[in-house]
């Protein structure tokens, strides 16, 4: 009996959390636009959330592309199909690894930072003081960070894929000797604009919404103590990683299934 009570209790809490998070996002994003005030805030957040995540994304992308080139080559060469290395690297990156790994890295790099920053603003009463100054912290603090995540994640994912393809090229063509022309021309022939690139971008947009939303909500509702903020930061990374992987399966099934 207790088991069922616990299930019900947890389900209710989860639903309540989702409801509260939706209300938070709604209040942050819906309202009279104030472009003159919002624009500088957005630019600043784009720098913090996007530009500062670029290095880790580029380095990871390069290595993942190189590994793909190496693994792909050793498998394909047995079948004499090493010309297919180009599309293999490009499609795995554009469809899957680009959006997914970018989202996971983004959750670890930018998501956790957002949670900790907003949690600390709560703990040091900065959010309350904004409220008391008649400035809505949802519009002022949450909204620009959300849009910054939404804009930067797809761009980061594209950069990830691009440098990954270059990594695959370095290993496959420069090092292992796959034919240069075949690598690029077969890739060009098999990667489709709508099916592969566009769908990958859609995936990143979905991941961007989910990861940034979780990070912001966890920060905004973090208990204003050191264990509270530390727990919220951990939850951000765990929940957003799980959400990204779960959603990736659903999106893949819908898009390519």
């Amino acid at each position, binding site marked *: 009996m207790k088991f069922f009570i616990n299930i019900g209790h947890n389900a209710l809490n989860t639903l309540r959390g989702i409801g509260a998070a939706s209300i938070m996002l709604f*209040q942050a994003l819906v309202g009279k636009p104030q472009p003159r005030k919002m624009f500088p805030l957005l630019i600043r957040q784009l720098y913090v959330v996007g530009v500062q995540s670029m290095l880790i994304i580029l380095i990871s992308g390069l290595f993942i592309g190189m590994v793909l080139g190496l693994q792909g080559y050793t498998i394909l060469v047995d079948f004499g199909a090493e010309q297919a290395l180009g599309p293999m690297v490009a499609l795995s990156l554009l469809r899957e690894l680009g959006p997914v790994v970018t989202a996971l890295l983004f959750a670890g790099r930018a998501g956790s930072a957002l949670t900790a920053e907003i949690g600390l603003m709560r703990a*040091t*009463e900065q959010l*309350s003081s904004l409220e*008391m*100054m*008649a400035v809505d912290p949802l519009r002022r603090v949450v909204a620009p960070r959300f849009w910054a995540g939404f804009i930067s994640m797809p761009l980061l994912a594209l950069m990830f894929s691009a440098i990954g393809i270059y990594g695959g090229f370095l290993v496959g063509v420069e090092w292992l000797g796959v034919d240069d022309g075949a690598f690029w021309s077969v890739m060009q022939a098999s990667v489709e604009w709508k099916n592969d690139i566009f769908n990958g971008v859609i995936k990143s947009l979905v991941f961007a919404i989910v990861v940034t939303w979780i990070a912001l909500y966890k920060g905004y509702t973090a208990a204003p103590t050191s264990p509270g903020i530390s727990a919220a930061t951990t939850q951000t990374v765990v929940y957003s990683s799980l959400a990204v992987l779960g959603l990736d399966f659903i999106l893949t099934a819908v898009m390519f299934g």
Partner: protein
Amino acid sequence: MDNLVEVKDIYFKRGETLIYEDVSVQVPRGKVTAIMGPSGCGKTTLLRLIGGQLKPQRGSIRFADYEITELGRSQLFEARKRMSMLFQSGALFSDLTVFENVAFPLREHTDLPANIIATVVKMKLEAVGLRGAGSLFPQELSGGMARRAALARSIALDPELIMYDEPFAGQDPISMGMLVKLIRSLNSTLGLTSIVVSHDIHEVMSIADHVVILANKTVVGQGSPEELKRTGNDLVQQFLNGEPDGPVPFHYAASKYENDLLAGGHGK
């Protein structure tokens, strides 16, 4: 007497804990009202209720022409433009300089040109003695300076009501003296109404016109400092004189001492 804030019969519960039962507090306009009481009696909560950050389950809170408990989000923001709160931590924005912190409410709520904003900010900083510290960041300030900078920010928009949450907590005697003087002088020069939450009895009693003492979830005494010293009940007297034992017992409720010791066993 004309009251700027009138709290009437509020009942407030946070989670399962009852904080207030039928609390009524009047804050006369143009005066310094002190709210005192033992730690944990919900003094800060009262400020948050007046500011509309919390909502009581029952009762009414009037500020100027607003009934705070019934306001929607946007009306609440309108009402808050006329009040201001100095937080215990100061709550300065750590990524902005002192000057920018004070300019922040002006930039948010007015369309004043930059040179006028600069003038206003300098005047406010001068009022708290920090005109020379405008370019410093909050982390470069001492605790007392941070609180004064926050005070400059709270008066930037010339509010009608300013609420101080424990302004003297953790201050050295010099900063304490400065803050006491500032609270009193700002109140008279700017025609403010102030609410000071504190338990530094001597400092508060020296500047307050009206004192409210909260304890046991309700108001146990309310009046001018002289009235309270003269006529307050036992609890008020214990509090004002800082007696270690009295209506608020020294011992936390427990079973009989001798029974507890003789019962043996481990701990508990």
